């Protein structure tokens, strides 16, 4: 049976979340911003899978993996809406720099 260190996995997802936070705070390009959000989101999804996989109870494993499936769907939806916003912003402003999108209307 495979055995792996839970602590190492937790540190990995903490580091990935930190990378995502860093990207969200520094990047000004909308697409890079979406990518940073995806990195942070993936760190979260990984956590659900870890706690499911390292739990001896099959019910918890099932719950962790089910939540991960649903979250992957939500993350993909978020990218689709984000790109629609990118296209609309690009058509109106000729730029996808989020610093220039300073009005609530497009």
């Amino acid at each position: 049976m495979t055995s792996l260190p839970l602590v190492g996995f937790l540190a990995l997802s903490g580091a990935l979340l930190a990378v995502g936070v860093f990207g969200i705070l520094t990047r000004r390009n909308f697409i890079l911003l979406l990518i940073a959000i995806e990195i942070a989101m993936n760190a979260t999804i990984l956590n659900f899978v870890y706690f499911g996989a390292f739990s001896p109870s099959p019910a918890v494993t099932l719950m962790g993996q089910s939540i991960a499936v649903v979250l992957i769907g939500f993350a993909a939806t978020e990218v689709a809406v984000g790109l629609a916003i990118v296209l609309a912003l690009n058509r109106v402003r000729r730029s996808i720099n989020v610093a220039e999108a300073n009005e609530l209307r497009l």
Partner: protein
Amino acid sequence: MNWEELAFLALAVVALVTGVGALLVRELVHTILWIAVFFVDLSAIYFLLAAPFLGVLQLGVYAGAVTVLLLFGIMVTRKRIFSREAATGIGAVPLALAAVTFIFFVSMVGEFPQGNLPVSGIDPTLLSEGLFGAFGPWLLLLGLVMLGAVAGAIYLVREGRE
């Protein structure tokens, strides 16, 4: 150190390097290449954690669909696809906040069991039974959110909107 730990270490290093690389390279197309490797790497981690269904889902949804969507976004928003981004400074405050996030998480790691733990997987049949049984309402909710997202996205990109 057994081969699974070595595999985990290699995958973790690749995930961190590609994640940071995707955010730091100047050409957006290169960013997409880095992030595609990142997604494939995460799917390998799912396989390592005995979750093959999630691994395949990650490959299909992220490495496939999301990567192509992002590439499409770059294609339609710029005239020359290989043009470089203007350099944005790294900044002390974002770096400090990211460091605080990481330290916060690592400081909580001590509360969890140290050392190696056995990994238990689940049969994909059981997972699908759970998804359409106990987690059915969540899946339905996901479907409704996706429907709303499709409607919203079409409204946003519609031509001739004032």
